C-alpha cells in the first residue's frame, strides 16, 4: 500500500528582485530545496530544524497553501501537485493544519462554536443542527465543555485556544494533520497537556501527523520518525530511537548535544556548534552544512552529498557518515531515585484526583 503522503524533490524558490519599475532578478531564496519524505497512516513524522531551515514552508507546500517550484506531492498515491478547484477542495478536507500561535489563528469576532464549525460550512458538511452537535462533541473531545461554544477567543487561555484550534482542524475528519509548532508558544505545564491530548487523539482517531517543531525533547516524545532539516534540505531521516541513539549526521549530533539537560551534574560538557546558519540566498556549495561542520573536508566543499540509506529506515546526507567518531551522547543519569519516587506519587495522586 502506498503511504498516506509522499513528497519527493519538493522545492520552493523565491526570486529576489530589485528595481521599482523595471525589475531584475538579483538572487534566489532557496527556502525549500529538494525535500523528500513520506508519512504512513497513523504515524507521526516530525520535521525538526532551526529557524530558517524551511520546515514551515514545507508544511505549507504540502497543503498547497503556497505552490511548489518543483517536485511532487502524492496523497494516497495520487499526485496532487496539479489538482485544481473542486477536487482540491475535497482534498483539503482530508488535510488540516494546526498553527503555532493560538492567539493569531482564531478570528476574535467569531464565537468558538462558529470558528470550529467554519471548516464544515466551507466544505458543505451537514446542516446547522448537525454542525452544532458536532461542535459540542469536538469540544468534549479536546477537553473543553459544550457551553464554551458561545464564548469568544479572548475568554480563553493559550492552552485552551490551542485546544480550540485542534477541534477546528478535526471538524472535517481529516486523515493528515499538519501541526506547525503547535506547542511552542505554550508554557511547559500547558505544553504537556496539549502534547498528551494530541497523542490521545491520534490513538483514538488514527490520525497521521506531520509535526513541525524545533524542540527536540517534544519531538522525541511525539514522533515515530524524524527528519532533520538544515537550510532547506533534509540532512537525516530515520526512526526516532535510532536517530537519538545513533545520529549519523554531524548536524543532528550538534542539535542533540545542544539540548540543555535538566541535570546540573552534566553542565557545560558540550562544545557548542560555532557560527550561524547561512542565508538561504547564499546556500554554500557542496554540503550546505560544511561551513559549520567540525568534520568538514575538501570534498564537502565541492560535492553535494546525496541522502542515502545507511541503515534500514535511516538515511543521511553526509559523505563521511560511516567514519565519524563516536558522538558521545549520553542521556542517562537523569532523575534521582528520590525525584523519580515523588514524580510517581504525583502521577498516582493526579490519576486518583481525576477518577
Amino acid at each position, binding site marked *: 500500500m502506498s503511504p498516506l503522503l509522499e513528497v519527493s524533490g519538493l522545492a520552493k524558490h523565491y526570486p529576489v528582485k530589485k528595481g521599482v519599475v523595471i525589475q531584475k532578478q538579483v538572487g534566489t531564496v532557496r527556502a525549500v530545496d529538494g525535500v523528500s519524505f513520506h508519512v504512513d497512516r497513523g504515524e507521526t513524522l516530525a520535521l525538526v530544524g532551526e529557524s530558517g531551515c524551511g520546515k514551515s514552508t514545507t508544511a505549507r507546500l504540502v497543503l498547497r497553501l503556497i505552490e511548489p517550484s518543483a517536485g511532487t506531492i502524492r496523497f494516497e498515491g495520487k499526485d496532487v501537485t496539479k489538482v485544481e478547484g473542486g477536487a482540491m477542495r475535497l482534498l483539503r478536507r482530508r488535510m488540516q493544519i494546526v498553527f503555532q500561535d493560538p492567539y493569531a489563528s482564531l478570528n476574535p469576532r467569531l464565537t468558538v462554536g462558529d470558528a470550529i464549525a467554519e471548516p464544515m460550512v466551507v466544505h458543505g458538511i451537514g446542516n446547522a443542527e448537525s454542525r452544532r452537535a458536532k461542535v459540542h462533541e469536538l469540544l468534549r473531545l479536546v477537553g473543553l465543555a459544550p457551553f464554551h461554544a458561545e464564548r469568544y477567543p479572548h475568554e480563553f487561555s493559550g492552552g485552551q485556544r490551542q485546544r480550540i484550534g485542534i477541534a477546528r482542524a478535526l471538524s472535517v475528519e481529516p486523515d493528515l494533520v499538519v501541526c506547525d509548532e503547535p506547542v511552542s508558544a505554550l508554557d511547559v505545564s500547558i505544553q504537556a497537556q496539549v502534547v498528551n491530548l494530541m497523542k490521545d487523539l491520534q490513538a483514538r482517531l488514527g490520525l497521521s501527523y506531520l509535526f513541525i517543531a524545533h524542540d527536540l525533547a517534544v519531538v522525541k516524545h511525539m514522533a515515530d520518525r524524524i527528519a532533520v532539516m538544515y537550510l532547506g534540505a533534509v540532512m537525516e531521516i530515520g526512526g526516532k530511537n535510532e536517530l537519538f541513539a545513533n545520529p549519523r549526521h554531524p548536524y543532528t549530533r550538534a542539535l542533540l548535544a*545542544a539540548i540543555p539537560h535538566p*541535570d*546540573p551534574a552534566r553542565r557545560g560538557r558540550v562544545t557548542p556548534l560555532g557560527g550561524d546558519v547561512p542565508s538561504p540566498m547564499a546556500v554554500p556549495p557542496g554540503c550546505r552544512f560544511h561551513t559549520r561542520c567540525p568534520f568538514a573536508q575538501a570534498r564537502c566543499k565541492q560535492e553535494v552529498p546525496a541522502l542515502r540509506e545507511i541503515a534500514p529506515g535511516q538515511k543521511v546526507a553526509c559523505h563521511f557518515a560511516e567514519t565519524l567518531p563516536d558522538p558521545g551522547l549520553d542521556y542517562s543519569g*537523569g532523575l534521582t531515585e528520590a525525584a523519580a519516587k515523588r514524580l510517581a506519587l504525583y502521577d498516582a495522586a493526579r490519576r486518583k*484526583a481525576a477518577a
Partner: protein
Amino acid sequence: MGVMQPDLLRIEGLRTVFKTSSGLVRAVDGIDLSVPRGRTLGIVGESGCGKSMLSLSIMRLVPPPGRTVEGRVLLEGRNLLELSTAEMRQVRGGQIAMIFQEPMTSLNPVHSVGRQLIEAMQVHSPGLGASALKDKAIAALKRVRIPSPERRFEEYPHQLSGGMRQRVMIAMALACEPRLLIADEPTTALDVTVQAQILDLLRELQSETGMSIILITHDLGVVAEMADEVAVMYAGKVAERASARALFEDPQHPYTLGLLGSVPRLDEERERLLAIDGAVPPPFAFPEGCRFNPRCPFAIAPCRAELPPLREITPGHQAACIRAPVENALSLESAA
C-alpha cells in the same frame, strides 16, 4: 568598606502591586531572595508567575500603575528602593545591567551597533574622547566573541543574526563592568545551537569578571545548565528555593514536581507526560490558601485555608508546602 558580605544582593519582603479595575494584582508578593557574589541565581516559573516583574522591581522600572509597596532591595548593603532618581540611574547600567529576551526590540534599528554601544558607555564614563570610546566599544564586541568587531561596529541591528544581536546586548550590558547582570529569558527567542553558544559565553564572562547573574527562565534545562541557586516562582511567590543540585536531585514542592514531569525526558520513554492540570490563575483572582492548591494533586483542607510559609526541609533547601516531602505526608495518612 565594611565587612565583605557573602551576598551581593539581598531581597527582603519585596511586594509589587498593580491597582487595576479588576482588582489588586499582587505581581510580586513578599519575596525573599539572595544572590551570592560571582554566582548565578536562576528564577524559574511560567508566564504570569511574577518573575519578570521581580526583576523590574529590583531595577525600579515597574511600569505604572504598578508600585513596589514593601520590602528592601539591598545591593552590597545599600537599599535601592531608598535611592534618589539620580542615584538609581547610576546603579542601572552601572552596577546592575539587564538583558532581555528579544534583542531586536531592545536595539534601535536606525543607529549603528557602534553608536548604540558608545551611547551606553558615555552615560557612565563622561569625558572620554571619541576615539577612546570607539576603541572601548570594539573591545566590548571582541569580548563577547563577535568575529570581525571593527566591521560589526559599523553595521545596523537588522544586519545581525539573533545570536549576534544578543551578543551585542551583552556587550552593551557589560560595558560598565556591572556587579550584577539580570538576564530575562536571554535565549528563549534563539535556536538551540545558538542558545548553547550564548549560555557558554555567559558562563565564561562570569568567570572572567566575577559578576553575579540573575537568570530568569521558564526552561528547567537552562537552569540546570547555568544556575548555582534556584528559586521556583508561582503566582507571585517563591514556591521552592534550593541549590540547583538539590532542586533537581530532591525536588520538594508539588509545583516543581509538575514542572519536572511536564518536560519530556531524553533518557526515558513514556506514553504520557505528567503535566499539571488547569492553568495559572489570573493575578487578580488568586485562590485562598496555597496559590497552587487548585492544581495540586496532594492538596488537603488546610492547603485551601492558609498560605504556607517557606520552611526549611533540609539545610539551605526551602519549600512553601505543608505536604513536603510528599512521601512522608502520604505514609502518615495511610497509617492513620
